[in-house]
């Protein structure tokens, strides 16, 4: 489903502060699977996720997504691809404060211009699946860490993406909530989605739902298992 060829990402190229975050990664990710990118801090997990998720471009290399090369897409098509193909769960919840849970979930759907009744119905269904529909009209400031995490999952799923990307999703959760998160991931996988998680949390990469763990170190692949 996703193929990476010699992906390299250099920040501040040519300057004294130059950092090679990802250094020549080749990787194939199967559809309808759960892949975990693991590795210590600074190993390039988040950078690789952002490149795969069309949030930044690699300095070198190619990405083929469902048979289509996306590295050379224009900004507009990259955005379109990000909106329709990927659902993204950030390390922090990154919800927009001051608006309701429902409005936060609807944000990715606004640029599509679908009827309000339709997108609201879908958002409510997702919130129901996340067991948080009773908080739909509450402001996000009032949510606990676990609730906020489930709202971001609902937000990531609102456009029915085929790939879900999560960056350190359990970093701010206790063990109970981390296990619950992995239960949700299992449910999403059963719907045929492809899931890519960056994490160095054993609860995540030791989970039975995970099909593959890719270990990164210093921007390179360490082990493929």
């Amino acid at each position: 489903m996703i193929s990476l060829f010699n992906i390299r990402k250099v920040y501040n190229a040519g300057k004294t502060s130059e950092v090679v975050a990802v250094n020549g990664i080749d990787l194939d990710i199967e559809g309808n699977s759960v892949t975990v990118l693991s590795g210590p801090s600074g190993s390039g997990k988040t950078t690789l996720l952002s490149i795969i998720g069309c949030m930044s471009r690699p300095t070198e290399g190619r990405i083929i997504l469902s048979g289509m090369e996306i590295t050379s897409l224009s900004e507009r098509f990259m955005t379109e691809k990000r909106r329709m193909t990927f659902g993204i769960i950030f390390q922090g919840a990154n919800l927009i404060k001051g608006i309701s849970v429902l409005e936060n979930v609807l944000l990715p759907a606004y640029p599509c211009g679908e009827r309000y009744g339709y997108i609201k119905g879908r958002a409510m269904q997702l919130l129901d699946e996340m067991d948080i529909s009773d908080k739909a009209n509450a402001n996000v400031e009032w949510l606990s860490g676990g609730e906020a995490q489930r709202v971001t999952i609902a937000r990531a799923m609102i456009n029915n993406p085929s790939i879900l990307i999560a960056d350190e999703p359990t970093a701010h959760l206790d063990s109970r909530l981390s296990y619950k998160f992995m239960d949700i991931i299992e449910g999403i996988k059963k719907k045929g989605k492809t899931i890519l998680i960056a994490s160095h949390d054993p609860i995540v990469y030791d989970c039975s739902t995970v099909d593959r763990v890719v270990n990164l170190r210093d921007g390179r692949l360490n082990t493929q298992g």
Partner: protein
Amino acid sequence: MLIRNWLQKNRYIVEFTLSSLLRRKGKNLALIVSYTFTIFLLSSVMLFTHAIKEEALTVLDNAPQMVIQKMIAGRHELIPVAYIERLRQIPGVSAVKGRLWGYFYDPATGSNFTLIAPDDFRYSDGEIVIGQGISRSRSVYKNDIMSLRTYSGSVMDFKIAASLSSDSELVSADLMLVSTGDFRRFFGIPDSFVTDIAIEAYNPRELNIVANKVTSIFPDTRPILRGDILRTYEAIFNWRGGVVVIVLTGTFFAFIIFAWDKATGLSADDRREIGVLKAVGWDTSDVLLMKFWEGAIISLTSYMVGVVFAYAHVFFLSSSLFEPFLKGWSVLYPRFRLMPALNANLLATLFFLTVLPYTVATILPSWRAATTDPDTVMR
């Protein structure tokens, strides 16, 4: 289908913008209040200057096309009535009329009154018609007797026959109308002289030619065209308006610095929000559209409220904030309501001076933030 989606998308963005503004109620309200106040001050000055020029234009509509004054040593002197007949003979002149008018300093109120002896004065000798300003300052009303000291020091009593309506108070506040005979007796002007001579021409375009002929026949005279008076009025009120604007410059600068800081300095929260929106699939153009609406809503609201308040201030409250400065330094302030006067040029000038710079200042920093990769929000 596509158009429907596009419209729906724009509706969502506008709604999200409104909720964004409401989220920062305090900050945005403070901005709108100071923005509105600045626009209110600027609009008040511009509306007042424009309206008073219009008022002067309306008043001068009834003024003669040309006035001839006799000059001696650079000063205005009485002009002989004999000049009138010679002036009538100039080709193109349709009417010539001698006028009697002058100023009277009233020590009781410390102000100057304007005395005029109109041709169509319909009251008898010993009667006077006065402006509202004089009536107020001397506390005299219809049927009262008003005593004035003549040129020779003797006292002349006038019975107040009427007072002039407040509609025309801009020009009539300090006005006194008397009969020709009373005027001549009051100032000691012989029958063979008038104050100046009013001339009308068949073709107003030939006024300059007529004026040249007048000065060649009577080199000791000075023709004053209505257009010249209008230009003088404009210069005076433009100058006064300009002085007020300069006085208010401090306020404008304070606002500009405040607005610039608010509009250009995106906070960490603003940047994070833009990053989140882009990461969840908003296009750069969607973010810019949102920021455009944000700037437009604030500046348009301030513009409309500021202009409406300024309109009410100028036309219903007689510009009470800076009335003495703009109307003049006369002791007898005229109390009058300006005729409401608005024009598209004035509104457009205000719009381009206020709304446009702010909206652009809002979009530019957002554009910088919106064109960066959204992955920054993941760190």
